[in-house]
């Protein structure tokens, strides 16, 4: 039955080829069903191979061993370097294929619902099948080079799928970043292959396993560190983790399959596969692995605490959980690492698919601040998500509890510091996952709220409006003041006239009655004029006062708007109450905000919820794979034993183990309780834990970007400049020197192509003629 192993990758490969040839013709949803069927076939084959392997003896003789190599054809037979395309069937590879194909098939099914209506529907499944094929080559390959083929293959598919919606520049950049960062790790893997080959003389795992014990310590250490570099790239560990959060730009099923359950665990697989080499390396090498894992676990967990994007939380959580697996490998607990890898594949795929279901139902909104109270609106999604939460938070008896507990126990025996970091991470994990669940499924339904950024925009509009009123009023003052000046001028003129009239009056001959009357009339008129001008001036002055009042009022208005809106530039988000609208009228709200009130979040179709239910079931019971109670229950331990050079066992007594488990449970409870206090009951403001440093991911990514965009780019520019100026400049300089050197030459080098042409042609003809004349045949 194990001979059927070639079928496992053959199914998705066939799916890929069929979709390549006929994908667009099949269209939606048939191409999706075809791809899902291929994965189903692959899963069925894996089960068959698994049963076949179970039938063999764990420590049997060569024919009945749980280690079977199937060689298909010679791939690269060059000199002493002979590499076949062949599969290694052993407990480790079969464990990997089972969950890859199982979870993979579910995610394929889910994608049929999720990708509904996408114009590139069939292309998506083409990439998914190609990915599955590459991933299976990675774990089934019987030599390092074939693993490397899968390794880079999954990287390429990841690049295709992150940049799937490529018209958005951001997605394209994220895809490129993932590929290039991974390539840094691939460099380490590649050099590790070189070193293994030059010392062992073979890169077949069977040979490496058999002869690794004879490796000199320095070589083994070097190979281990190089493999660690490779693994850190693929599994997003310090310092190469920056690509994974950005990879969330891809469609959510991709995040679940590639960036949570399968591809990112490749590093853990590779290190486990090469455990024979790590075993003989210097002690500091595995310690480095453990501390890198622990450090990554902790840092990523702190970042997850302050993220608002539902997928970003899960991305950092994945990095953190992968850190646990590296921690396990560093302490020699390979089985614990694989155990956690499998349980993590279940609950993290579940959480990602759940988040996809939420995003799907929430009009593609990924911000958890806009969720809340979805428990009743999306019952299946929320119940399954809650199961995933309990599993990752380490609540017994859910799967994550058992695997994490085992890692922590091994860490305790290796180094208390590692254990402490692991425990703090566990508390943080329980905290940020509870935060996510509470913000999404519990509390107030916030989708219909007017959003803080909308309010900020409105407030900004109001302020601008009031400020416009102020400047208008200020203009009014100007006008009024001009009127005052004019009125004053008129008054002066009227007074001057009055004075002249008074003088006229005085000079007027009283005897001349006619003239006297006229003067009196004139005087009266002048007096009237003065009175009128006086009134006008008074009025103008009042107007100025009024204008000044208007400015004052407008300014007061600005102040009130400022104060009412937020006092500062931003409105703080409050989980528990909708932001106050103040005097903002309903019709002033943006259309989007009003449209959201009419929006009804909905549960996803069955293609999406069925995988959720199945994965939730797995997340509940997967712990039974390796229960700690008695040796008979260590199924995974016994199963994987033949693939390990030195299977590690816990040496602590039962009392210590119980105590450690109790501490871990208490840690989980502490994390959950803190989240309840902050995110359900509002006893303490969230900003106390959501530190800006965490929200900005410790500024690590931005520092790298700044470096690459700054000094990095400049140094590259320098090389290009050097090439043009010095290397090429020297050549052109010599040319110029020759050209100006001799007059004879100058005439020839007149730059005309034709003259060269003639010369060369004449030379060639002369040469041929000479040859022919000397020829003796």
């Amino acid at each position, binding site marked *: 039955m194990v001979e059927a192993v070639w079928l496992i990758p053959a199914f998705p490969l066939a799916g890929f080829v069929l979709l390549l040839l006929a994908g667009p013709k099949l269209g939606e949803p048939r191409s999706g069903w075809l791809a899902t069927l291929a994965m189903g076939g692959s899963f069925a084959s894996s089960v068959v191979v698994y049963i076949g392997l179970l039938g063999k003896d764990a420590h049997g003789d060569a024919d009945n061993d749980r280690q079977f190599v199937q060689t298909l054809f010679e791939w690269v037979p060059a000199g002493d370097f002979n590499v076949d395309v062949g599969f290694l069937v052993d407990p480790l590879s079969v464990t990997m294929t089972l969950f890859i194909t199982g979870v993979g098939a579910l995610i394929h099914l889910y994608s049929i619902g999720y990708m509904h209506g996408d114009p590139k529907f069939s292309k998506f499944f083409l990439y998914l099948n190609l990915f599955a094929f590459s991933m299976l080559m990675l774990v089934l390959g019987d030599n390092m080079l074939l693993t490397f*083929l899968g390794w880079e293959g999954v990287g390429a598919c990841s690049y295709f799928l992150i940049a799937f919606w490529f018209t958005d520049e951001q997605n394209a950049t994220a895809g490129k970043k993932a*590929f290039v960062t991974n390539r840094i790790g691939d460099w380490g893997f590649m*050099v590790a292959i070189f070193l293994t080959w030059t*010392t062992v003389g*073979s890169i077949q795992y069977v040979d490496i396993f058999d002869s690794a014990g004879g490796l000199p310590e320095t070589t083994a250490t070097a190979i281990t560190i190089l493999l660690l570099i490779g693994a850190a790239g693929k599994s997003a560990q310090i310092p190469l983790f920056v690509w994974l959060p950005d990879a969330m730009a891809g469609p959510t099923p991709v995040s679940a399959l590639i960036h949570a359950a399968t591809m990112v665990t490749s590093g853990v697989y590779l290190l486990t596969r090469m455990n024979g080499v790590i075993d003989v390396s210097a002690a500091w090498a595995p310690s480095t692995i453990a501390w890198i894992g622990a450090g990554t676990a902790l840092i990523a967990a702190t970042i997850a605490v302050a993220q608002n994007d539902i997928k970003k939380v899960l991305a950092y959580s994945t990095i953190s959980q992968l850190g646990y697996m590296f921690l396990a490998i560093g302490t020699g607990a390979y089985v614990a690492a694989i155990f956690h890898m499998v349980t993590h594949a279940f609950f993290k795929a579940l959480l990602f698919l759940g988040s996809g279901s939420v995003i799907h139902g929430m009009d593609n909104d990924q911000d958890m601040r806009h969720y809340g109270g979805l428990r009743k609106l999306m019952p299946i999604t929320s119940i399954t998500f809650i199961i995933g939460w309990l599993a990752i938070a380490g609540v017994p008896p859910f799967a994550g509890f058992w695997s994490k507990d085992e890692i922590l126990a091994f860490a305790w025996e290796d180094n208390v510091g590692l254990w402490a970091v692991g425990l703090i991470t566990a508390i943080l994990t329980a905290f940020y996952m509870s935060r996510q669940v509470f913000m999404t499924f519990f509390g107030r339904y916030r989708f219909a709220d007017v959003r803080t950024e909308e309010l900020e925009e409105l407030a900004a509009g109001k302020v601008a409006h009031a400020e416009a009123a102020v400047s208008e009023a200020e203009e009014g003052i100007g006008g009024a003041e001009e009127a005052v000046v004019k009125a004053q001028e008129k008054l002066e003129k009227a007074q001057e006239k009055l004075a002249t009239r008074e003088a006229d009056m005085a000079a007027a001959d009283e005897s001349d009655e006619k003239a006297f009357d006229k003067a009196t009339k004139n005087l009266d008129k002048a007096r009237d004029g003065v009175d009128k001008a006086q009134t006008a001036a008074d009025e103008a002055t009042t107007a100025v006062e009024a204008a000044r009042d208007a400015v004052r009022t407008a300014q007061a208005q600005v102040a009130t708007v400022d104060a009412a809106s937020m006092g500062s530039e931003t409105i703080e988000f409050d989980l528990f109450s909708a932001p106050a609208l103040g005097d903002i009228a309903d019709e002033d709200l943006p259309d989007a905000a009003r449209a959201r009130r009419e929006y009804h979040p909905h549960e996803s179709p069955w293609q999406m919820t069925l995988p959720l239910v199945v994965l939730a079931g797995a997340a509940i019971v997967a712990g039974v794979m390796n229960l700690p109670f008695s040796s008979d229950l260590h199924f995974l331990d016994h199963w994987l034993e033949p693939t390990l050079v030195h299977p590690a066992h816990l040496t602590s007594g039962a009392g210590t183990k119980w105590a450690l488990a109790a501490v871990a449970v208490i840690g989980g409870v502490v994390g959950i309780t803190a989240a309840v206090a902050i995110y359900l009951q509002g006893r303490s403001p969230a900003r106390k834990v959501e530190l800006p440093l965490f929200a900005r991911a410790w500024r690590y990514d931005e520092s790298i970007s700044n470096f690459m965009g700054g000094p990095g780019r400049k140094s590259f520019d320098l090389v290009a400049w050097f090439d043009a100026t010095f290397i090429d400049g020297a050549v052109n300089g010599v040319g110029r020197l020759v050209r100006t050197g001799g007059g004879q030459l100058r005439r020839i080098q007149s730059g005309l*192509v034709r003259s060269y*042409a003639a010369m060369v042609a004449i030379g060639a003809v002369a040469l041929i003629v000479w*040859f022919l004349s000397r020829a003796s045949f």
Partner: protein
Amino acid sequence: MQSLLLAAEGGSASFPVLSALVILPVIGALTLLLLPNNRPENFKQLAFLFSSLVGAMAIWILTDFDTAHAADFQHQNSHTWIESLGISWHLGIDGISLWLVVLTAVIFPIAIIAIDAEHTPKAYYAWLLILEAGCMGVFLALDLFAFFVFFEIVLIPMYFLIGQWGHGERAYAATKFFIYTMFGSALMLVGILSLAFLNQAETGVLTFNLIELAESQAIATTTARWIFLSFALAFAVKVPLFPVHTWLPDAHTNAPTAGSVILAAVMLKLGTYGFLRFGVYLFPEAAVWFAPALVTLGTIGIIYGAIAATMQRDLKRLVAYSSVAHLGFIVIGTFALNTEGIEGGILQMVNHGLSTGALFLLVGWIYDRRHTREISELGGLQKPAPFFAGVFMVVMLSSIGLPGLNGFVGEFLTLIGAFAAHRWWAVVAASGVIIAALYLLWAYQRVFHGPAEGENATMKDLTFKEALIMAPFLFGIVFMGVYPKPVIERMEPAVEALIEHVEFHVEDFESPRPGHLGPVDDHGDDGAVSEEDDH
């Protein structure tokens, strides 16, 4: 007498098929010149016909190739040419030249059919055919003088192709190309003559026969090193190796598309092939002595070319600089002087021909459609031209060295060969694959991803004819990535014979090979073997 003997050994007294490979294109060119000018479309058809005939013959040679005797020169064809000087028309093919001959024979008809001449088609196609004859001659010649003549002859048609059918600063580029490479090979002529006469002084026989000269190894060690240097300079310019590479970006950028394709796919291999056949084979001791220096230059080329490619604004220039990096891999593989490295180098010669040849074609088609190669003016092309983008992607991934495609196998073998010989250089060279991903993916993003605006939004997708032209490239790219065995096993005897030749003639030299650890019974015992692992 000698020549007759060789011809008999070759066992091809019937039809001089190798001579036909060289002469047929010349006949084609002459026929073109005789054709009247009133039916210009006939020129292209006729040129395609002749080059296809050459292609068919090369394919026949491939199927007829005797793998068991791949180390021997087959189909040998030898005539005394200038008896007094010991010069002969001597052609032969072995497992090393086989693939380059096939590559040449396949690329030419494709380059001819893929793009129309912009003007004066008669001369254009005639020059292309002459070029083909010259390239074939270089790969087949077993006489140093004949080799030199062919090596020089190829310059003439390429000079005219760039100078008259090129774009931009074509006169400058053509002149630079011509003078640069001419300068490099001038010293080689001195070297060839010195070698022949010094060999005559030692052995009493004046000959330019490659095999005889290689087997006699009569001249003094130091002299041989100087002569090797004169050869190496010519080849280094042709490859091109850092720091004599700057003619390449100018020539590539300004050449017509077919010129760029042939330049990249075939002509750069004249240098790397020369290193192998007329460097390592002819001067084994000097090759060993100079190997560290050449590996160093190759490594610098890998990193330097990749960095320079990253900063280019012209898409064609970017691909040109990527060639400098790719050819660096071939050089480090060749001078690793072990089976893996040399086979990787030969594979990489073919791979680079496929992937870079195809890239230049695709870039040429973009230029035809958009009349620009400025990366900043392109963008979002995947939207209007998804098929084009998909083909470009596959070719690009081949160039990046993605496993499963052809580029990986060659690149990996050169690196692992170099690692066995010069560990640290290989470690540095391997980092070139990171930068390769950076510049190609970045270019792809700027050209194909993002929103498509203006003329970009309506760019025509790949036509059926273009897809048909791309098909052989894509087939080669996938086939040689998945199943390179038929290619490797046909070259292996020749490569191993070459290495044995070097080991035989160079004292204290052993080709760098991996160590072998046997199975250990008890794993992880502290008392395990502690063999020193430093090479």
